[in-house]
């Protein structure tokens, strides 16, 4: 029999664990955006070495499953003498991976900005840094917003994988609740709907922001 009571009883615990899901997603996204912008600048740079390096980075982080990247960060870094706490390893890896995807999104959006703008900015004497911070990035964020929101939703879902490094977020918590109550279906469905709720909020916020930004 489907037991709603199990869900109700365990909801506070699940919500508590949701904090970690949110924390990892938010920090991962922030790190991903900053690093993604830098990567994107490298990918569009005139220097071949920088372009190659950015290409390699993107190909690696997009080509290797996040689960494996997490294991690399968690098991391999200590081998070379770097000890990172699980949460830091998780946020770092999720952020590094998000950066690869976001840099591609930003690259696409920057290509959509008319070339004349960059030329004009340089012609009136803006430094390349100003050009990026004041002209290219703000517009790229706006153009790429739907895709960025998409990435954010993927990020929230990717955070379920950090269970492998032992962080008790929604999925891990539901695993342990399910195995102690034997109510697998109820608990995992509750976890699923929790994720769904988070993502629907993000999607709605994205749509709102989109409408605000398009004048």
């Amino acid at each position, binding site marked *: 029999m*489907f037991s709603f009571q199990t869900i109700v009883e365990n909801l506070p615990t699940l919500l508590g664990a949701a904090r970690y899901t949110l924390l990892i997603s938010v920090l991962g996204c922030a790190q991903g955006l900053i690093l993604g912008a830098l990567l994107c600048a490298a990918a569009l740079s005139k220097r071949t070495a920088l372009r190659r390096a950015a290409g390699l980075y993107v*190909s*690696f982080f*997009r*080509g*290797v*499953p*996040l*689960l*494996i*990247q997490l*294991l*690399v960060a968690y*098991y*391999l870094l200590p*081998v070379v003498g770097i000890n990172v706490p699980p949460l830091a390893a998780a946020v770092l890896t999720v952020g590094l991976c998000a950066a690869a995807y976001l840099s591609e999104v930003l690259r696409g959006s920057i290509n959509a900005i008319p070339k004349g703008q960059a030329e004009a900015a340089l012609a009136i004497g803006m430094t390349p840094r100003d050009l990026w911070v004041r002209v290219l990035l703000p517009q790229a964020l706006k153009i790429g917003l739907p895709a960025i929101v998409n990435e954010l*939703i993927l990020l*929230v*879902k*990717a*955070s*379920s*994988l950090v*269970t492998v490094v032992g962080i008790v977020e*929604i*999925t891990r918590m*539901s*695993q342990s609740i*399910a195995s102690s109550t034997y109510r*697998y*279906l*109820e608990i*995992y*469905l509750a*976890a*699923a*709907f929790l*994720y*769904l709720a988070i*993502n*629907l909020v993000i999607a709605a916020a994205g749509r709102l922001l989109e409408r605000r930004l398009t004048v």
Partner: protein
Amino acid sequence: MLEMLHRYGPDLLTGFGLTLLTWMLGTAGGLVLGFLLEMARRFGPRFWVGWPIRAYVEFIRGTPFLVQLFVLYYGGPLIGLRLDALPAGVLGLSLYGAAYFTEILRAGFDAVPKGQIEAARAIGLPGRTIVWRIMLPVMMVSALPALVNFAIILTKETVILSMITVPEIMFQTQTMMSETFEFVLPILILALFFWGFVEVISRFGRRLERRFTHYLLEES
């Protein structure tokens, strides 16, 4: 190190094989199911078919694949759906893929110029022929990159099947790691395997794209 490879080589090879198999079956299942869903949505009644499909897509896209697998594998028996790990994994991949594929196909079909469909209808082609001979080939041009992209994403989702004990490559390397306490080599093998795997698929995808858009290039 050589000894380890000798000892675990066969297991790793079965793991590779199973990863490839689950990916192929999952992608094929997802494509077929996604196509059927799209057909049902496009030609079926809006209320009884359209809305449930929409809800399905939202549910699958809004929840992590790991959680979906847990619901299917651990929760399934409670409603009488008792599956072994491998079939559950393949079914899970297909159900997951179908939601994304059906959206990609929808966008693709929407992009087919209306005039072509009207023209086909005007010269009396039956509905099925219109779908197979007119809409599908035209749709492929715009939708193929996204389809290949998602097929690549699915390769990386296959490792999650290890969490429900499907003995694919991830599962094998994890066993290897916990038996030998050796982490560097197994993880390196794993990372290199996937990097290569994805590289091969994306090359293949690019060739497929050229195949489908060939006629566009010749004109210009």
